[in-house]
């Protein structure tokens, strides 16, 4: 007789579990080498606390009431719980704080390969240290984590979350048009972007900037190409990226990074640098992260911060594919 389990959840059997445990141990070891200490937080939190981190509420899809009628939610990532943890448990302590975690999170997505509703994230948070050095440190840890997973061909995309917001401010694009443009960028709809930008009153140069930036990705030379487009917002973003990249090059991981001015993640708390992880053996993004200098302030202790999370099951799939390719 078989019994159902909820969509997007699954049982893990010994062969897979053994491999997942090995992967977790390799990642924990890599994080530990950089001085990150492991933390765990509850799987369930008060909904109002999670909503403080991302008021759109999108992250917390699974909510329910406890015996006192309080609204609880399953965490959708580890970053917001750790922001809460830093503000409450380390209120008087001297930063920086270096934490890593390996834990379950929950999202109401359409389940598919490597993308379940209950999934394991492994990542780090570096709290209380400024860009660009702290961003570069996090990228360096990420590169080491990918190496420890056997994904030596994996590439880290590095972009800037503030670029388009600041660029649209500079070009005085506001209201619904601004929202539509940001939506086109977040959903990777470059055809929609071109149509939207075509309806705006602006110089040809500004139009070109908006249309060409999302396609600029590659080595450090893309920063020069972007700078040629001109404008204060582009200048600021490319300077931030160049500073981070310089530090990455000094740390010997510049070759792992793909600078990407088209990168825009849809999580609401990112400021400055944003990251995505790709491996040529699989079609899905393996993880992401970035800076969130305002997030911990929302919990009452303003501290700059950066981090990343890898989707453990997807890293495992990539590992298996890479082994098969040989």
């Amino acid at each position, binding site marked *: 007789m078989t019994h159902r389990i909820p969509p997007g959840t699954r049982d893990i059997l010994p062969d897979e579990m053994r491999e997942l445990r090995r992967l977790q141990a390799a990642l924990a070891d890599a994080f530990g080498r950089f001085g990150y200490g492991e933390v765990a937080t509850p799987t369930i939190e008060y909904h109002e606390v999670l909503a403080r981190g991302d008021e759109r509420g999108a992250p917390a899809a699974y909510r329910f009431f406890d015996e006192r009628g309080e609204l609880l939610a399953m965490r959708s990532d580890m970053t917001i719980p750790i922001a809460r943890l830093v503000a409450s448990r380390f209120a008087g302590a001297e930063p920086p704080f270096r934490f890593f975690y390996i834990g379950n999170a929950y999202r109401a997505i*359409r389940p*598919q*390969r490597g993308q379940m509703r209950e999934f394991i994230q492994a990542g780090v948070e570096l709290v209380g240290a400024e860009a660009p050095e702290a961003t570069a440190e996090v990228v360096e840890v990420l590169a080491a984590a990918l190496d420890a997973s056997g994904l030596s*061909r994996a*590439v880290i*995309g590095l972009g800037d979350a503030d670029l388009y917001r600041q660029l649209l401010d500079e070009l005085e694009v506001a209201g619904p048009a601004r929202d539509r443009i940001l939506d086109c960028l977040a*959903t*990777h*709809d*470059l*055809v*929609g972007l*071109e149509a939207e930008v075509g309806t705006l009153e602006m110089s040809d140069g500004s139009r070109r900037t908006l249309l060409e930036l999302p*396609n600029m*990705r*590659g080595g450090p030379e893309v920063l020069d190409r972007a700078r040629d487009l001109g404008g204060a917002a582009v200048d600021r973003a490319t300077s931030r990226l160049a500073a981070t990249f310089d530090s990455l090059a000094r740390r010997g991981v510049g070759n792992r990074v*793909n600078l*990407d001015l088209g990168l825009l993640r849809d999580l609401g708390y990112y400021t400055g640098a944003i990251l*995505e992880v*790709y*491996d*040529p*053996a*699989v*079609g*899905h*993004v393996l993880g992401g992260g970035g800076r969130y200098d305002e997030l911990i302030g929302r919990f009452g202790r303003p501290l700059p911060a950066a981090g990343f999370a890898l989707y453990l099951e997807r890293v495992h799939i990539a590992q298996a*594919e890479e082994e*098969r*390719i*040989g």
Partner: protein
Amino acid sequence: MRVAQVYGARALGTGALKLAIPRGALYQRTLDLLDRIGIATEGLRGDSRALVFDCGELTVITMRPSDVPTYVEAGAAEVGITGKDVLLEQRDRAVYELLDLGYGACRMVLAGRRGDERLGESERRLGAIRIATKYPRTAERHFEETGRQAEVIEVKGSVELAPLVGLADGIVDLVDTGRTLADNDLEVHEEIAACTARLVANRVAHKLRVPEVDELVERLREAAR
């Protein structure tokens, strides 16, 4: 080692780009476009039942238009061509939409029986309009965005039938010349979106195969003019 090479060609990082193209209404125009950028498409024009064609610099894979986003999102094909109607219906597929190829122009419309007030009347007296469609998510989104309530009925075959026999008050469907509508005494009430063929790319391929993807985009942009 041989096996490794075969699998290596499958990975996103190496080998010819795999282009998923739609069988059906867009097929001939898609092959014509590929001809114009110098891809040999004779093999694709015959009556071969093969699904995968080695065209030198590209490997071309043929499939139903609605499967293209599935293959491209998963990275089984790095790039693909399909209609905007398919992309609208599958908005949650995370793919890059890179280029409007211009051909296969159609309109996604709300249509009802000619001179029939049923659409308005159902909304006023019954609180919702009944809509038959092959594009349930596009239809639901359109009514949500325009602040109306609709009962969306998904059908697989000829949607024009639904309002004729009273299954629905109207239909949301893709219209080319409008002849099928006219033959069934239906007329367009609202236009929802203009649809053409689009070039899409896998998110990872867009980042890791930059020179090949960008070059393909430029050649197709020129050829599609």
